[in-house]
Every structure is written in C-alpha cells, then in structure tokens.
C-alpha cells in the first residue's frame, strides 16, 4: 500500500487562504521521494513554517506516523485564519500537530534552537513589489517581494538557528528566486544542498531544495562560488530537459 498523504476533500479551506496547489503538491512529492531517508533519519521534532491550509504538515505526519512513532510536530503561520484551518485539516485526518500563530518562528527560536530535525517551508515566493509583503490575509501566502526573496531571506537565518545537527530543511522555490544564490548563501552557513523535485507548470518553474549541515561545505572562496552557481544552473537545465523529453 502506498504511503498515505493528506486527502484534498478533507483539507479545510477559507476564502482568505491559499488552497493546496502545484507548489504544495511538489513539496509533498519531495517528502514522498525522500520518505525512506526521512524514516532512517528518525526525527524527533518536525516543523512546518507557513502551514497555510495544513496540507503539507498533515501529509508529513501521515507519511511518517507508522514508521516513526513519538515525533513532535509543530506548525506556524503568520495568518490566524491559516492556523485555525490547519487545525481543522489535521483533525479531519485524525492527526495532531502543535500550532502557533507566529511570524516565521518568532517566540520559538530561543527554546527550540538546534532541536528541529525536519523543517519544511513553502514560502511566499512570488516576485512582487516589497510593499505587498506581510499584508494581512491571502497576500501573505504568496507576496515574496523583490525576486520573491524578501521572506525567504528572513526565513533562512531562522532555519539555521532551529535546525539540529542532523536536521534537514526542504524549501519550495522558483527559478526566478535565484535558487543557486540561496544554496550558496546556505553553503556559507555550512549547508550542502540538492534539488529533490523539479517541476514546470504553465505558470512557474518549481524547485524543491533540500539542505543539510555538512562541515565540508563551509567555504568563502569566490572562485568556488561562481563555479557552484554555474554547476547549479546546469543541473536545473538537465532536470528540465528530462521533464520535457
């Protein structure tokens, strides 16, 4: 029997909330693709930042719950409506996560530092003018500011604080977010990265990135940086070719 994920008819909704869409599905597909590794990693604390409808955190719980018992699941969202809808979605699937209404992980950073083994984020990544970032309601789900990076760039240092030594971080990005630059920024903090899922839709070219701590990755060298970016672009192009073939 294939592992269970959240069922769309059971996902709660609200007119002020972003419904599960291609990006959410791609993120859950990445978690499914990595499921065996996730089980082996034996996480104790898993967290979603920006849980929206609750589709992703519910799926993560469902696809781990039989193999990895006793995991503490946390979910945050800056939109109070999203936190309530996530609770409904979780309850409809008979699973539990602790939900906090917070800006990224504000209020949790001090005590959760270095303790989270899996962090999943589908951030607001759509390039918009910066003034649209952080507006109340549904816009907070997609308005990503210049290059769609304003919120992503705020999330990265928080993830670096929260993630445990063996921690993994899954991030939804678009090619227009300059993902190679994101990987390079994380590399300078000591993280290795890879693309778990690449998916082109009519509207966007999605990449699900995975990051993990790797002591060998720390580097400041400019030459290596530029070759890293060109290698990254090559791997994206080859993934895209595969998809269209």
């Amino acid at each position, binding site marked *: 029997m294939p592992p269970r994920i959240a069922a769309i008819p059971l996902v709660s909704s609200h007119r002020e909330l972003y419904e599960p869409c291609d990006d959410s599905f791609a993120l859950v597909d990445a978690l499914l693709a990595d499921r065996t590794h996730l089980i082996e990693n034996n996480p104790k604390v898993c967290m979603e930042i920006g849980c929206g409808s609750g589709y992703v955190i519910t799926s993560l719980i469902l696809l781990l719950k039989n193999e990895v018992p006793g995991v503490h699941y946390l979910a945050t969202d800056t939109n109070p409506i999203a936190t309530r809808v996530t609770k409904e979605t979780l309850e409809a699937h008979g699973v539990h996560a602790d939900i906090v209404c917070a800006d990224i992980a504000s209020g949790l950073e001090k*005590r959760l530092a270095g303790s989270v083994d899996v962090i999943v984020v589908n951030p607001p990544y759509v390039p918009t003018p910066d003034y649209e970032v952080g507006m109340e309601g549904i816009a907070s789900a997609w308005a990503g500011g210049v290059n769609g990076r304003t919120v992503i760039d705020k999330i990265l240092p928080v993830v670096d604080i929260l993630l445990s030594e063996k921690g993994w971080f899954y991030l939804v990005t678009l090619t227009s977010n300059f993902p190679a630059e994101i990987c390079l920024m994380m590399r300078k903090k000591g993280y290795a990265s890879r693309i778990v899922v690449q998916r082109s839709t009519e509207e966007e070219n999605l990449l699900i990135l995975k990051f993990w701590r790797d002591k060998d990755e720390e580097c400041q060298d400019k030459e290596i940086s530029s070759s890293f970016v060109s290698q990254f672009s090559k791997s994206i192009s080859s993934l895209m070719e595969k998809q269209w073939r």
Partner: protein
Amino acid sequence: MRLIVHNMLSCNIRGVVNKFPLRIEPEKVIVKEVDFNPDFLKHMIAKIDWKALVDGARSMGYPELPDHPPTTLESDESFLRKFHHSLLELNLEEGSLVCPETGRKFSVNKGIPNMLLHEDEV
C-alpha cells in the same frame, strides 16, 4: 495549546530580557487523551524546563508533578504517566500567556497561541 509548546515559547518583544516562561492565565482547560510513549517522554525530559512545566501544570489545575524529576526514569511508570499527562494531554483551549517582564498578554484562542507582535514591539 499543550504544555510541550508552552515550554518552548518565550516573549519575543524586542529588548525583553526576562522572557521565559510565560505565565498561564487559563479560561478554559481541556484534556485530550494521547497515546503513552515512554521513549518519547525520556527523550523529551532533557529538553524540558522542569519548573516551567510544573508551574504551567499547576496553573492549569494539575498539581501532581514533583518539584524535581526522579533521577531514574526507567522503573517509574507512575511518574512518567504524570509527566505524559502534563506535557501532552492538558490543553489550554482559551486563555492568555503573560510575559514575566512586561506583562504583555498573548491570547490563546481555540487552543492556538497568538505570538504576533504589534509594530512597535518588533
């Protein structure tokens, strides 16, 4: 909101030093049964601020936890059951979390704490 979350929440207002633990002002407390998992509890106890848990449970009407956890947990199921109940089964459904330094109240509605700040607090 369960006490496992309360144990992880601090006041996030800029400049506040004494930010943990938040004092619980309960309006409605409910108990939701959770499967007993001793391994999970043994893993968690190292991460838990014990005094915050004891005070939190007391403020929610459960005074059964000892002031200090026993040194050996293996054989002490009655202790683990109390720890389990406090950490995972007590739920603050409605109420407030109060910053120990500023007295700022963070509301808890339908079991969800709201840690969002006002503009002048960030």
